[in-house]
């Protein structure tokens, strides 16, 4: 810290208006852990209790847990960031992890310390309650809601109200399986067709007046088997938002499969029943809900505007005219213009979502000093978004981020892959998807692929097993982990899928071929090379791959099979004597073997 920083008056800290926490849940958790350890609580009920409070099991051990902190609508405030920084040093590994669903996870926490984390969270109004288990998971909202040029209105208050309504609500404590809501801003920043309930804000003109409402999609989701959601009706007026949500949950609660763990997400119910039948049921149920609940049950939507106040600086010290190297690259690949004149939203990419305690600490101050709304948002891509940054403050923000290692470029490009936790902590993992995502990012930034506009709208997403926490099904190039062998020697191997997407044309990626972990990078580079040789002038990698998977390409590469042929020579396993490294997974120096425990699934 420089002297001038000290002289600067620290801008006020904006605090969350909503307290999501209950301090007594910390004591209760501590007590229950003791009873469980004394054998007075059976394994299954303890597990249910633990998950309901947001603590997952950890790979191959009963001693540690992962605590998943919910950030409803993705919002996070400076005091909360500082607290999480402290908690990560005290009870976790000195790093925290941003997930793909706007949660922050603390891993390798001793089960007996979990209640201490709850206490700390309660001090800043955060909770992990119902972040796991068969409940309504964190209610997500696009990080650009409220600033996106393509949105009709800001859905953030509705996401927050929905989260508030269902948190600790008895109707949501014992669902057949987890249940997820995603609110978004527009089609492009989507993720609404890959979730139980997805919502896009819409405005309808009727009799000269305008009415707010949503396009609602039901029954989508990624998993061992993935489905694209169906739109319920043309337009759902805002008054019907809650009734619709309740109706859907009631049907799921009543008819969902409680026995077969592998098939009990709502998407299976929708699929088994057929969409039309399900749709009718929802509409009927909603009429009942509306008729019986209208007086007492409503969403508490807070429409009071956020204060937008550019943080005042007494003087602009530290020679801000000197724009550091890499600024233009960063500006191009990490920021977007907002609807609001002169403001941008800035995306911070973290390697596979990981951030250190000291970076978090610095981030809290950076938000206070640069975001005119005084808070941050977490995104869909294991990342953080600072919004309402004034154009004139961008170079200075960049220098600050650079100082603390948060200025990696390419946040909005293919060079920022998603990797689930994989063998770093997940019980079901077969490969170290987490490290692979980091390796790809490092390599691709070194190759400056973030600057290649042809690649910008593509994505890479990696899961460590066929479950889809890493969202491989909606990536332009997706991977999920498994094992393979040559004779008795095993190696980490990924199934590669091509052409997935989660926007208005949502579709799932198609299986291409299996790629050994240590060949993933060369394979992606080969795909890029092939694309460059065959692209049409306006093509991006994404549009090219889409033509291929949809059978609309007329050049020499017409199908996935053609791509496969080109890649096949790269994936041939060498003998273990020729290349022993091939047989080690990333981040491991001992021979590869698959080993899994009981799954609770964690991204």
């Amino acid at each position, binding site marked *: 810290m420089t002297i001038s920083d000290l002289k600067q008056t620290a801008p006020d800290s904006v605090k969350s208006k909503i307290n999501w926490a209950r301090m007594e849940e910390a004591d209760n958790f501590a007590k229950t852990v003791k009873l469980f350890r004394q054998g007075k609580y059976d394994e299954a009920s303890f597990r249910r209790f633990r998950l309901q409070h947001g603590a997952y099991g950890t*790979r191959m051990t009963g001693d540690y847990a992962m605590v998943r902190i919910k950030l409803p609508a993705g919002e996070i405030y400076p005091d909360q960031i500082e607290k999480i920084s402290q908690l990560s040093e005290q009870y976790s590994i000195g790093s925290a992890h941003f997930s793909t669903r706007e949660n922050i996870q603390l891993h390798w926490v001793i089960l007996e310390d979990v209640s201490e984390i709850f206490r700390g969270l309660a001090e800043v109004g955060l909770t992990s309650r119902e972040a796991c288990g068969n409940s309504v998971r964190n209610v997500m909202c696009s990080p650009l809601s409220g600033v996106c040029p393509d949105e009709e209105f800001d859905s953030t208050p509705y996401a927050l109200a929905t989260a508030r309504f269902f948190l600790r609500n008895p109707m949501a404590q014992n669902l057949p399986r987890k249940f997820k809501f995603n609110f978004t801003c527009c089609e492009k920043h989507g993720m609404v067709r890959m979730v139980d309930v997805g919502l896009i804000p819409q405005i309808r003109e009727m009799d000269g007046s305008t009415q707010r409402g949503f396009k609602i999609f039901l029954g989508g989701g990624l998993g061992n088997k993935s489905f694209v959601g169906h739109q319920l009706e043309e337009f759902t007026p805002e008054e019907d938002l809650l009734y619709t949500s309740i109706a859907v949950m009631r049907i799921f609660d009543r008819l969902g499969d409680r026995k077969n763990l592998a098939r009990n997400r709502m998407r299976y119910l929708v699929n088994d029943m057929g969409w039309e039948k399900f749709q009718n049921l929802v509409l009927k149920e909603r009429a009942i809900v509306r008729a019986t609940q209208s007086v007492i049950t409503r969403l508490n939507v807070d429409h009071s505007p956020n204060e937008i106040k550019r943080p005042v600086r007494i003087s602009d010290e530290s020679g801000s005219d000197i724009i550091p190297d890499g600024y233009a690259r960063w500006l191009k690949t990490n920021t977007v213009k907002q609807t609001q004149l002169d403001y941008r939203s800035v995306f911070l990419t973290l390697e596979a979502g990981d951030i*250190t305690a000291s970076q978090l600490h610095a981030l809290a101050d950076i938000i206070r000093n640069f975001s005119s709304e005084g808070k941050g948002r977490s995104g869909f891509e294991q990342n953080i978004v600072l919004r309402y940054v004034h154009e004139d403050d961008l170079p200075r923000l960049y220098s600050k981020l650079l100082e603390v290692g948060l200025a990696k470029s390419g946040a909005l490009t293919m060079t920022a892959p998603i990797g689930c936790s994989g*063998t770093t902590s997940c019980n079901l993992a077969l490969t170290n998807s987490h490290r692979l995502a980091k390796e790809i990012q490092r390599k691709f930034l070194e190759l400056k692929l973030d600057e290649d506009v042809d690649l910008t709208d593509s994505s890479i997403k990696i899961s460590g097993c066929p479950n889809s926490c890493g969202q491989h099904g909606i990536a332009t190039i997706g991977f999920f982990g498994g094992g393979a062998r040559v004779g008795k020697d095993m190696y980490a191997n990924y199934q590669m899928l091509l052409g997935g997407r989660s926007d208005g044309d949502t579709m799932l990626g198609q299986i291409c071929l299996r790629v050994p972990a240590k060949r993933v990078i060369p394979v992606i580079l080969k795909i890029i090379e092939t694309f460059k040789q065959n692209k049409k002038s306006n093509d991006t990698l994404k549009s090219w791959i889409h033509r291929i998977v949809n059978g609309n390409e007329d050049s020499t590469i017409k199908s996935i099979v053609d791509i496969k042929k080109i890649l096949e020579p790269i994936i041939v396993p060498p003998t273990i004597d020729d290349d022993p490294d091939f047989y080690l997974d990333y981040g491991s120096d001992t021979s590869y073997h698959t080993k899994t425990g009981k799954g609770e699934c964690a991204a």
Partner: protein
Amino acid sequence: MDSTKITTDVDSLRSEIRDKSVRVIDVRREDDYKQDHIPTAVNLPLAHLLSDDSPERVLKLVNSMGIDDETPVVVYDDTFGALASRVAWTLEYLGHSNVTLLETTYSNWKSIGLESDSVIPEIRNKEHSLKLQPDILATSDYLESAKTRDDVILIDNRERLNFLEQHIPGAISLPYRTLATTDKILRSKDDMKRLLENRGVTGDSEIITYCGSVGTLSGLAYYALKSVGLPNAKLYVRSFKEWKNLQKPTEKQEDASYWDLSAE
């Protein structure tokens, strides 16, 4: 002295300094000390002490700092109390009972605007007796045999990742950061009690703390245990570094690549 008094609060220290009834020891590096320090403090950089911490040498150092058996001593550092703890423990081991830790760090002392100066005090030598307290020390041999008893708790105060990677078999992990709050080197008594109780660190068990190399982080933990009145704490002062050099058995968390979750 109240035997559970582990830390001295800022106000008390200031009045004790005014009354000239205390010897304050600054354990930071000499350069830092020379720049400024708490008024009347003498300097004993931890490295200087550790270069030879045989009782005879330490006794000489103590005498030269003008400390006799009755002198109240307060130790401070700028390293969340860990270095100060190691020095305080050494005095205690020598047989000095009246030693406490300043409740906060020197940076914090300064940031709240309290006085400091660069005056190096004139000290008259005193004579301290030598009454070693072997009860608060654990050696590797001692630890090895103690581990076989089930009323002994072994605590590792290094960071979690280091613990996962390698630790003394049977140890529990309690990273040093857990012991402090934002502005105090130790949590309040109630908070500390609850934390330790949750972890099963209670009652009359013998408790041995260790850390990476010289017993600083675990020295702080030693005082944390004493702060809640746990009577039977020992410091394995040569800690994990010695344990590994002696090629004694270690344990690790298997089958997980936790390091790759770290953003370091």
